[in-house]
C-alpha cells in the first residue's frame, strides 16, 4: 500500500484533518505525517506507482538519484517549519504549510509532465495562503499578483506538456531539447518559478509580505522545485550558464540598497539560485552535484536567516534596517543563529555554504569558464556584503535603536538551533553530505588553496565593509521602495495602458457623436425628400398597405390551393 503512495501526498490529504485537532495534538500529528511521508524514501529508485486516466499515463511516484536529495531536504525543511511555527495557534497556516510541503515533495516524485503540472499548481494554490496570512492590504494585493504569475507559469508547463504529448506520444518528465517549441515552453515555466532575470519580480514582491512563518516555508520549496526541474530536464543547456551568471550578479546591487531585511534575503535568494542555475548549465557530474548540494545547503541556511528575521519581525513588528539595531542583548540566541546562517551563506570554511559552493566553482574552473568564474567570485563577495554582514549587523548591532524586546519563542529557537547545527555538520563532515548527491565523485573541498583563498576573499571583503562603515562612507538605511522588475506590471503597464484605454474611450465617444450626427442628418434628409407630402406620405402609405395585404391574402390562397386541391 505505502509503496504505491507518493511521498508528500499523505501530507496533503492529512492536512485536511488539521483544523479539527487541538493545538498540541496538531503539532504531533503534523510530525507523524511528515515521517510517514519520508518512509516512502526508503523504497529505493525506480517507478513505484502509475495510474491511467483517459488513456494518459500518470507516473505519480518515481524516484532516482536526483530525486532523493531534494526529497530528503524537503522533508527536513517541513519538520523545521512545523517546529518554527508551533507558537501559531490558528490552524490556517499549518494547513497551508503542510499541503504546500506535500505538494512540493510530490512534485519531485512526478514521472510525467501532467502529474508535475498538478503538483506545480498545487504548490501555488497552497502557498498563496501564507502570503494572505499577513492580513494586510499590501499582502492581499501581493498574493493576487503572486497567484497570477504562479498559475501563469503552470499554463506554460501545461502547454509544453500537451505539445510534447502530441509530438512524441508521451509526456515523460525527462531531458528536453531547448530548440523545440515544447522545450521552450517548459523552459519558460521553470524559469518563472526559478525567478529568472526580469521574471523575478514576484519573488521580492511576495515573500517579504508573507507571515514570519510563511516566508520560511516559501523560501524552501517553490524556487528549489524549479531548480530540481531544471536539473532533471535542462542539464547542460548552455544558455543557463549566462542566465545563471546574470542572476548571481545583479540582485547584489538591489540587496545593498534595500532597507527591508527580509526583502534583502529574497534578493540574496535570487543570487544563490543563480549559482545553481550556472551549475546546471555546465551539466557535468561535478556541476550537477554542486547544484544539488547548493540547493540542499541553501534551504538550510536561507531558511535559518529567514527564521532569524522572522523572529525579529515577530518580536519587534518590523524588519526594516532603518528601524532596527542593538537587538543582540535582547535576542542573543536568535542573533547567534542568524550569524551562523550568515557565515554559512558567505561560504566560510567549516560551514555548509563552503562545501557546496566549492563544487560549483571547481566545475567552472575545470570547464575553463573563466569569465563566469570571476562573475561568481564577485557575487561571492557580494553575498558576504548583503547577507553575511548586512543582515546580522543592521538587525542586532549597528546603532542603538532603542527597541526593548525579549528572546524569540522557544519553538523558534529550537528550529533555529537545529538548522544551525545542520549547517555546521554539513560543513565539518562534507564526505557524508556528498554521499547523498546524484553522482559518486571524489572531491576534497578542504585543501590549502581553497581554504586560504576563500578566507582571504571573505575577510578582505569584510574589511572593506568595516572601512566603509567606520569612516562613515556607508550611507544610512532609508525607508524606501527599491524598484524591481515587478515595476513593469505594477507601474509601467498600467501607466501606459490606462492613458491608452482613456484615449480609445475618447475616440469612441467622438465616433459615437459623429455617427449620431450623421444619422440625424440622413433622417432629416429623407424626411424632407420622401415623407412630407411626397413619396411616402400618409395616404400613399395606406394605399400601399392595402395592396400588400391583398397580395398576402392572394399568396395564402395559392398556398392552400396547391396543398389541398
Amino acid at each position, binding site marked *: 500500500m505505502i509503496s504505491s503512495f507518493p511521498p508528500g501526498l499523505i501530507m496533503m490529504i492529512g492536512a485536511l484533518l488539521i483544523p479539527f485537532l487541538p493545538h498540541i495534538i496538531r503539532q504531533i500529528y503534523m510530525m507523524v505525517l511528515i515521517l510517514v511521508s519520508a518512509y516512502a524514501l526508503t523504497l529505493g529508485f525506480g517507478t513505484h506507482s502509475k495510474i491511467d486516466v483517459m488513456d494518459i499515463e500518470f507516473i505519480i511516484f518515481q524516484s532516482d538519484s536526483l530525486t532523493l536529495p531534494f526529497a530528503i531536504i524537503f522533508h527536513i525543511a517541513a519538520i523545521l517549519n512545523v517546529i518554527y511555527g508551533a507558537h501559531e495557534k490558528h490552524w490556517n497556516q499549518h494547513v497551508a504549510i503542510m499541503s504546500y510541503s506535500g505538494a512540493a515533495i510530490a512534485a519531485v516524485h512526478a514521472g510525467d509532465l501532467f502529474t508535475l503540472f498538478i503538483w506545480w499548481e498545487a504548490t501555488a494554490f497552497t502557498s498563496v495562503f501564507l502570503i494572505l496570512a499577513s492580513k494586510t492590504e499590501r499582502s492581499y494585493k501581493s498574493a493576487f499578483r503572486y497567484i497570477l504569475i504562479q498559475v501563469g507559469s503552470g499554463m506554460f508547463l501545461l502547454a509544453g506538456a500537451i505539445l510534447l504529448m502530441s509530438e512524441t506520444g508521451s509526456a515523460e518528465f525527462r531531458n528536453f531539447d531547448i530548440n523545440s517549441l515544447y522545450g521552450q515552453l517548459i523552459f519558460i515555466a521553470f524559469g518563472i518559478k526559478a525567478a529568472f532575470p526580469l521574471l523575478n519580480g514576484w519573488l521580492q514582491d511576495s515573500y517579504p509580505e508573507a507571515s514570519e512563518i510563511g516566508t520560511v516555508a516559501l523560501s524552501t520549496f517553490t524556487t528549489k522545485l524549479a531548480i530540481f526541474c531544471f536539473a532533471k530536464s535542462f542539464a547542460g543547456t548552455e544558455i543557463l550558464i549566462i542566465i545563471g551568471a546574470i542572476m548571481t550578479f545583479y540582485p547584489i546591487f538591489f540587496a545593498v540598497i534595500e532597507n527591508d531585511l527580509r526583502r534583502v534575503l529574497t534578493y540574496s535568494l535570487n543570487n544563490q539560485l543563480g549559482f545553481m542555475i550556472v551549475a546546471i548549465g555546465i551539466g557535468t557530474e561535478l556541476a550537477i552535484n554542486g547544484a544539488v548540494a547548493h540547493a540542499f545547503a541553501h534551504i538550510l541556511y536561507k531558511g535559518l536567516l529567514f527564521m532569524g528575521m522572522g523572529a525579529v519581525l515577530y518580536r519587534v513588528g518590523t524588519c526594516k534596517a532603518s528601524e532596527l539595531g542593538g537587538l543582540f542583548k535582547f535576542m542573543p540566541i536568535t542573533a547567534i543563529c542568524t550569524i551562523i546562517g550568515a557565515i554559512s551563506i558567505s561560504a566560510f570554511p567549516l560551514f555548509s555554504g563552503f562545501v557546496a559552493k566549492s563544487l560549483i566553482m571547481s566545475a567552472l574552473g575545470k570547464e575553463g569558464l573563466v569569465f563566469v568564474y570571476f562573475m561568481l567570485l*564577485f557575487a561571492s*563577495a557580494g553575498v558576504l556584503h548583503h547577507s553575511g554582514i548586512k543582515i546580522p549587523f543592521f538587525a542586532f548591532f549597528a546603532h542603538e535603536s532603542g527597541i526593548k524586546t525579549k528572546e524569540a519563542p522557544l519553538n523558534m529557537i529550537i528550529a533555529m538551533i537545529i538548522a544551525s547545527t545542520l549547517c555546521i555538520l554539513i560543513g565539518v563532515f562534507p564526505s557524508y553530505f556528498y554521499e547523498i548527491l546524484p553522482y559518486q565523485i571524489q572531491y576534497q573541498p578542504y585543501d590549502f588553496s581553497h581554504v586560504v*583563498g576563500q578566507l*582571504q576573499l571573505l575577510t578582505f571583503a569584510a574589511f572593506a565593509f568595516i572601512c*566603509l562603515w567606520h569612516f562613515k562612507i556607508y*550611507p544610512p538605511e532609508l525607508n*524606501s*521602495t527599491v*524598484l524591481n522588475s515587478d515595476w513593469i506590471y505594477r507601474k509601467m503597464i498600467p501607466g501606459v495602458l490606462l492613458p491608452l484605454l482613456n484615449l480609445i474611450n475618447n475616440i469612441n465617444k467622438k465616433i459615437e457623436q459623429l455617427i449620431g450626427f450623421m444619422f440625424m442628418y440622413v433622417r432629416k434628409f429623407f424626411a424632407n425628400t420622401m415623407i412630407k407630402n411626397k413619396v411616402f406620405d400618409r395616404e400613399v402609405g395606406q394605399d400601399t398597405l392595402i395592396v400588400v395585404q391583398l397580395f398576402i391574402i392572394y399568396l395564402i390562397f395559392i398556398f392552400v390551393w396547391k396543398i389541398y386541391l
Partner: protein
Amino acid sequence: MKYLIEKFGKINTSVLFLCIIFLVLELIGHRHGETSIEDILFFPAFFGYVSCIVIFKIGVSLRSFLMKDEDYYDK
C-alpha cells in the same frame, strides 16, 4: 594593539588581524587557484576588497533612480 582597539574597536581590529594572518599563510604554503590569474600573490584578498568597494559604489549610485518613496506603489 591597544591603540588599534581604542581607535577601531575589538571586532574591527580582530578582522584586521585575521586579514594579516591569512596573507601570511599564503607566504608559508603554496596556494593555487582554479584559474591561472588567481595564482597571483594575494589575488583573492585584493579581489575581495575591490569587489566589496565596487558593489558598494554601484549600489549607492543606483539609489538615485531605483529608490523611491516607501508608499510608491500605494499612490
